[in-house]
C-alpha cells in the first residue's frame, strides 16, 4: 500500500511552517503505511556549504565525533544532531576530505543524502513517532517529500524506507512496484551509478539521476520513465529547486493534488491534505495518468 506526500511552498512566508505541515501529512498517512517513514526537506542554503546527512547506530556520539572531523579537515564541520541522524556541513571544497575522514574515524556511519539544501531522514516506526524523533515539526524549508511504508516485498528496515536518493539534492518517494528494476540497475551500474540496496525504488531514483546527468530536465527525466520503467508507480520527486509528480499510465496507485497561490501539495489521499492552510479554497484534482506535473522556483 504505502502513503506518499509532498509539499512545495510558492512563497517564502510559508517556509517556516513546512516541517509542521509535512509532519501532519505524514501522520495522517499512517493508515497506509505504519512500518516505517521517511522524509526529505529542502532547507536554506548556507553559502558554498554542502550538507551530508549521515546515519549512525543508536547511541552514536555525533557530538564527540564532530571535533575530530574538524581536526582532520583543519576546518570547521557544522553539526546538527537529530536522533540517529546528523547533518554535517562543510565548505564544498572539503567534502572529499570529510568523506575520507568519516570512513576512517567512524566506518559504522552511513552517508544517506548529500546536497546544498536537502536533508533526508528515515527510520522504522509509526510515521508520527519518526517525525517527532527527528523534530520534523521544527524544520523549515521550501519543499519536502515524505513516505509511509507498508512493507510487502522486503523487510521492515531503515534501508527499506523511503525516500531514496542517488544524486545531489535529488530524492524520490514511490508508491507501487517496478518489475524491470534488475535489468535497469545493471544498465545504470554500467553507466557508473552506485546502489546501496536491492530496492526497486532506489533504481527509479538512480534512473532519474542518470537522465538528469545526461542533460534532461526534471520533466524530461520523468517523461523518459514512461518509456523505460515497467510496473506500477506514483512518484513524487524533489530536486534542489523543483518538485514533480508522475503516475504510470495504468494509475492503480491513488493520487490527489491541491494548489493555492501559496503552495502545491500531493497526497496519496485527500485526507493527507485537509489541514493545509486554505485547503477549502484550493483547486483539488486527481493527476492524470502518464502526465508530468512539475514546479520550479528560483535557486
Amino acid at each position, binding site marked *: 500500500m504505502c502513503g506518499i506526500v509532498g509539499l512545495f511552498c510558492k512563497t517564502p512566508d510559508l517556509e517556516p511552517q513546512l516541517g509542521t505541515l509535512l509532519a501532519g501529512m505524514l501522520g495522517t498517512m499512517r493508515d497506509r503505511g505504519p512500518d516505517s517513514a521517511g522524509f526529505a526537506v529542502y532547507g536554506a542554503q548556507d553559502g558554498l556549504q554542502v550538507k551530508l546527512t549521515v546515519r549512525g547506530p543508536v547511541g552514536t556520539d555525533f557530538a564527540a565525533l564532530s571535533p575530530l572531523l574538524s581536526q582532520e579537515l583543519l576546518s570547521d564541520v557544522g553539526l546538527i544532531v537529530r536522533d540517529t541522524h546528523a547533518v554535517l556541513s562543510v565548505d564544498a571544497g572539503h567534502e572529499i576530505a570529510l568523506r575520507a575522514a568519516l570512513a576512517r574515524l567512524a566506518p559504522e556511519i552511513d552517508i544517506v543524502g548529500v546536497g546544498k539544501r536537502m536533508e533526508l531522514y528515515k527510520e522504522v516506526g509509526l510515521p508520527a513517532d519518526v517525525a517527532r524523533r527527528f523534530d520534523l515539526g521544527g524544520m523549515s524549508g521550501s519543499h519536502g517529500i515524505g513516505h509511509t511504508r507498508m512493507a510487502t516485498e522486503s523487510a521492515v528496515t531503515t534501508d527499506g524506507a523511503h525516500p531514496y536518493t542517488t544524486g545531489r539534492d535529488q530524492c524520490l518517494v514511490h508508491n507501487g512496484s517496478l518489475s524491470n528494476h534488475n535489468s535497469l540497475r545493471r544498465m545504470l551500474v554500467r553507466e557508473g551509478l552506485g546502489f546501496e540496496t536491492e530496492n526497486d525504488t532506489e533504481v527509479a531514483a538512480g534512473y532519474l539521476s542518470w537522465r538528469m546527468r545526461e542533460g534532461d530536465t526534471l520533466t524530461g527525466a520523468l517523461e523518459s520513465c514512461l518509456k523505460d520503467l515497467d510496473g506500477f508507480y506514483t512518484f513524487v520527486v524533489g530536486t534542489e529547486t523543483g518538485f514533480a509528480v508522475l503516475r504510470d*499510465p*495504468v*494509475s492503480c496507485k*491513488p493520487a*490527489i493534488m491541491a494548489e493555492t497561490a501559496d503552495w502545491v501539495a500531493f497526497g496519496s*489521499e*485527500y*485526507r493527507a*491534505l*485537509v489541514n493545509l492552510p486554505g485547503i477549502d479554497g484550493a483547486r*483539488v*484534482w*486527481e493527476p*492524470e*495518468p502518464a502526465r508530468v506535473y512539475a514546479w520550479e522556483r528560483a535557486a
Partner: protein
Amino acid sequence: MSEALDQIARTVDLSTETVRSLNAALHGLPADTNETLWRVLNPRGQHAIAVGLTRPVAIEIAGHVGYYCGGMNQAASIEVHGNAGVGVGENMMSGRIHVRGDASAAAGATAHGGMLVIEGNAAARCGISMKGIDIVVGGSVGHMSAFMAQAGTLTVLGDAGESLGDSIYEAQLFVRGMVASLGSDCIEKPMRDRHLAALRSRLDAAGFGGAIDVAEFRRYGSARRLYHFHVDNAGDY
C-alpha cells in the same frame, strides 16, 4: 440548503463524531422513519461515509469524501458537495448518488442499479463491471471505463479515455466528446430513436437539462465476439 431545511435536517459533524457512529445511526433507521433529511459536515476525505444505506433518506455531505462513499446504497439519495475518492457508489443497488465535483477511479464499480451522477470528471475505470446502474458524467472519464460492463448505461458528456468498454457485455455507452480508443470487442452502434429518447430522459433525470443536444452523442456497445471461446483465438492465450 435553506434555513428552513436546516432546522428539520439532522446534522452530523464528522469533526466531532465518527463515520462509524454516523453509519450506525443511518443503519438503525426504521422503514417509516421521519428523519429523512441528513446533513453531514466536515467529511474531510474520510472513507466509507454513508455506506450500506437501505432507507429512502436524503443525505447531503458538505465537502470532499474519501473512498467508497455511498457504497452498496439502496434507496437513499446522497449528494456530495465536493469530490469523491475511489469507488464512489461501488456496488450500489438503487437510489441515487450525485457528486457535485470530480470522482476518482472506479466510480460506480459493479453497481446493479440506481443512478450515479458526477458533475465533474471521473477518473480511470469508471463503471468497471457495472451490472445495471445508470452513470452520467458531466465531464470526461478516464481510461478503461466500462471495462467488462455487463448491464446499465454510462453517459459521458465530455471525452472518454483509452480502451473504453474493453471486454464489454451488454451495457450501453453514450459519449458526446472524443473517444481516445475503444477496448477489445467494443464497437460503435447506430443511435436509434429509442436510444435518443432514453438518453434524453436520463439526462433530464441527472439534472443536465434540455440545453444538451442528444444528437451530439454516439453510442457504443458489445460486438459480442468474446462471449464464447473461439478456436481461432486459441493462439492468443
